[in-house]
């Protein structure tokens, strides 16, 4: 068993920032990640980092824009923390040498982004995430922080008191991809999940193949509630063939969207009469699909994004990476012709419920970055707000886990604050096909956890994970994960996409149930202990199934249209009934739905919900 003060799971922007912060605070910290840090998908972020750095801008404006963008489902304490802290974190990155794009006077450049009242998006060409990731990994190397790379975390080691709020996380179980060894990692002070996105729940996504929502799924199964899962961002400009992202920076710099008739539809059809292409992402994605559905799409599938008028010099200076992506993945020379684009899954606003210090309701368990939900983004994330979230909340989780006093959080987690029970009618039972084996073995001292010390919990979790792997490997003639995964991805894209309606959502639940049943007989054909990706993908597929179900349950229960969540039957935002977060607790295999109120009370003012127009 390995032992550290703080264990960080995942090595993208949030994980690296958390590790650096924890070490700064004096903790012995280690990162456990299924990818080497520089392979993390933070590297694919293109557009930029919002920070109120300049005269004429203020953190208050950043907070207001973010709250409005969230369609009033973000929590003010989290949003204000983001807006207040982002400037110092951006300057910190600059002091660590990050290669930001620069103004004539040598200062960091900023550009306009969708939904922002000020050009506050700092950037490094159209490869901001790559520069951020590498800059932070450099700091990790400098500090000698230990990384267990290509170690896949299988599970959390959490005690099993009845109420999740009474549980403690003591560590994680890791699987060494290269050797096939399973090892416990004990965390004396805390585990920070920073496992990123879950885009692989869908089949058309900007996310990496590795973005399978592992952290969200394992926290969920360990009892931590997951929040607002129905809110999935579909980015309006992804390449049709692969889902590769074309940065919002293109529109920020002046790129224009056209339909098949050559009309600038954002204005001409009144989707966003003021902001046009720079409306919030949910607005633009719906507009594009409306155009396609109205027969004004190109090849019945996509619209055009044109940046030719910006001129070669400006494009090369600020958006060069876009030229490469369009050329390599769509065969389009964007200096000569418009780029085909359509909406694609991009970001999960929901995730593991945390407070503004990154803490979940389980003692010693933290989450930061895309896998977490504080909530900064509410029902829709603004472009340029994901990267500051990584560094701001990554750092806070790291400091807090290592013992720094950040003050008491205003956001409550678990059922500690005000909450109400929820209910939703489903065509099939959600949750585990069979009750969790662990929960079933009552009477056994090891199973019920009484008398176990912290290391004992880690050992127990390690034994269970080992057994699970053995049973998957033994069932070598079982169902192959690839087919099950593909079915779920297809159903989610067909039924739980930009436009949602009740029948389709119910169909998705039936498909997911079928996938769960098929998964009962899943097996791993590859019998090797060495670099067994067949095994790992099989394990990831279970996470995909659990999260697909959570997204669909949330989408079915939320009977309103808010932010990224559009419902055919409910065409209005309903503040009277739905100014609240959706939460799901796994409860050993029978998902429980509940709600908690949104916090609109800021430090100095209350954010009154207004009609959201751009």
């Amino acid at each position: 068993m390995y032992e550290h003060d703080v264990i960080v799971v995942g090595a993208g922007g949030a994980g690296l920032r958390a590790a650096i912060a924890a070490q700064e605070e004096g903790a012995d910290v280690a990162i456990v990640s299924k990818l080497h840090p520089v392979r993390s998908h933070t590297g694919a972020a293109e557009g930029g980092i919002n920070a109120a750095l300049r005269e004429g801008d203020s953190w208050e404006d950043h907070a207001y824009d973010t709250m409005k963008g969230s369609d009033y489902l973000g929590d003010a304490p989290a949003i204000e923390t983001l807006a207040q802290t982002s400037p110092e974190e951006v300057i910190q990155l600059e002091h660590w040498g990050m290669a930001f794009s620069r103004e004539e006077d040598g200062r960091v450049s900023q550009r306009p982004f969708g939904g922002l009242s000020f050009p506050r998006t700092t950037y490094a060409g159209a490869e901001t995430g790559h520069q951020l990731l590498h800059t932070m990994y450099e700091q990790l190397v400098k500090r000698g922080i230990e990384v267990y790379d290509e170690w896949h975390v299988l599970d959390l080691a959490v005690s099993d008191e009845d109420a999740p709020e009474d549980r403690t996380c003591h560590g994680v179980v890791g699987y060494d991809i290269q050797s096939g060894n399973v090892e416990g990692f004990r965390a004396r002070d805390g585990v920070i999940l920073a496992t990123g996105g879950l885009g692989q729940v869908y089949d058309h996504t900007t996310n990496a193949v590795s973005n399978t929502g592992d952290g969200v799924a394992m926290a969920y199964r360990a009892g931590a509630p997951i929040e607002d899962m129905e809110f999935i961002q579909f980015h309006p400009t992804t390449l049709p063939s692969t889902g590769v992202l074309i940065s919002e920076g293109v529109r920020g710099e002046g790129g224009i969207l056209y339909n098949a008739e050559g009309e600038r539809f954002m204005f001409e059809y009144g989707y966003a009469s003021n902001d046009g292409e720079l409306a919030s992402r949910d607005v633009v994605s719906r507009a594009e699909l409306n155009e396609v559905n109205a027969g004004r799409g190109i090849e019945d599938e996509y619209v055009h994004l044109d940046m030719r008028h910006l001129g070669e010099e400006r494009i090369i200076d600020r958006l060069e990476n876009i030229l490469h992506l369009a050329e390599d993945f769509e065969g389009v020379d964007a200096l000569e012709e418009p780029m085909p684009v359509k909406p694609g899954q991009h970001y999960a606003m929901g995730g593991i419920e945390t407070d503004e210090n990154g803490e979940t309701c389980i003692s010693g368990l933290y989450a930061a970055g895309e896998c977490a939900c504080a909530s900064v983004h509410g029902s829709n994330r603004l472009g340029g707000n994901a990267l500051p979230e990584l560094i701001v909340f990554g750092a806070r989780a790291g400091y807090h886990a290592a013992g720094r006093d950040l003050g008491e959080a205003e956001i409550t987690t678990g059922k500690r604050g005000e909450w109400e029970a929820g209910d939703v009618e489903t065509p099939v039972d959600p949750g585990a096909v069979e009750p969790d084996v662990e929960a079933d073995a009552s009477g056994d001292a090891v199973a019920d956890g009484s008398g176990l010390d912290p290391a004992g919990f880690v050992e127990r979790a390690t034994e269970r994970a080992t057994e699970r792997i053995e049973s998957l490997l033994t069932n070598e003639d079982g169902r192959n994960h690839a087919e099950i995964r593909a079915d779920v991805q297809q159903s989610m894209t067909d039924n739980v996409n930009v436009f949602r309606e009740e029948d389709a959502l119910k169909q998705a639940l039936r498909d997911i149930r079928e996938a769960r049943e098929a998964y009962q007989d899943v097996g791993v054909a590859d019998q090797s202990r060495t670099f067994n990706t067949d095994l790992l993908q099989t394990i990831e597929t279970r996470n995909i199934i659990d999260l697909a179900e959570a997204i669909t349950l949330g989408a079915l229960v939320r009977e309103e249209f808010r932010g990224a969540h559009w419902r055919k039957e409910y065409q209005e935002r309903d503040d009277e009934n739905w100014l609240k977060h959706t939460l799901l607790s796994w409860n050993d295999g029978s998902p429980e739905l509940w709600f908690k109120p949104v916090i609109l009370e800021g430090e100095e003012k209350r954010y009154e919900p207004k009609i959201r127009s751009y």
Partner: protein
Amino acid sequence: MSTQVPDQTEDESSASEAETVPAAQERRMEKKRQRAAEAEEKRQAEEAEAALSDEETYHLKVFRYDPEIEGKKEPRFDDFHVPYHKGMTVLDALMYARDTYDSSLTFRHSCRQAICGSDALFVNGSQRLGCKTQLSELDEPVRIEPLPHAEVVKDLVVDMEHFYDQMEAVEPYFQTNELPEGELEEQRQSRENREKVKMSTRCIWCGACMSSCNIAAGDNEYLGPAAINKAYRFTMDEREGEDMKQQRLEILEQEHGVWRCQTQFSCTNVCPKDIPLTEHIQELKREAVKNNLKFW
């Protein structure tokens, strides 16, 4: 160029593991292996037949090796016939082959868009990123091998440790003695200087350059093009200051540093991010000379 497979006899862990396996299980596994081998033969025959009837397929010959699986301990090539669609990349084809024909086919990949640097492979004799290489550009059969000059872990996966060690040997992090004092005050950097280091910052650590370099193949201690480029990125960054530049040139001038490069341009030719690696190395040589003359 041959791919280096670790010597079997030195692999103690797998040997000792094999001894502890009970005889019954051993027999069962032997049967399984036979069945697997038969199934594999059948599959390849079926695929080949399907390929004859359908012109829209691509023929892949993929390197296979697994230190612990019977039949794969000796490296071999497997044939896959993959249905082709426009825009299909080498990575797409590998994923198709894995998900459809053989789930044990193993390769690293993640982002699918040439930024994570996981899938550098040796395709038809040169180092390329699988996700960025169109099948239509390649002659058939498409021969896909792991990166040469690295130890093969399994199939197309190589051990990257040596590459990472070299990257970390050049103090690959920003260092400066003077930061601006004011709160929220950034360091200034001219646009020209940012432009100068821009290409060098694009490295995605894929290892293609190192694998293509003959010098690195012969001198295990040579820093190699990627690490030298990383050092270039900081040496040329005006924000670091003169003292640091001095320190960096000392690292680069060591016996296994910049002077090893013989300007064969193989690294530059294979770099998927078009970084002018050879130029950067030459520029650092010039800097080193200038630097030495200064003290002369």
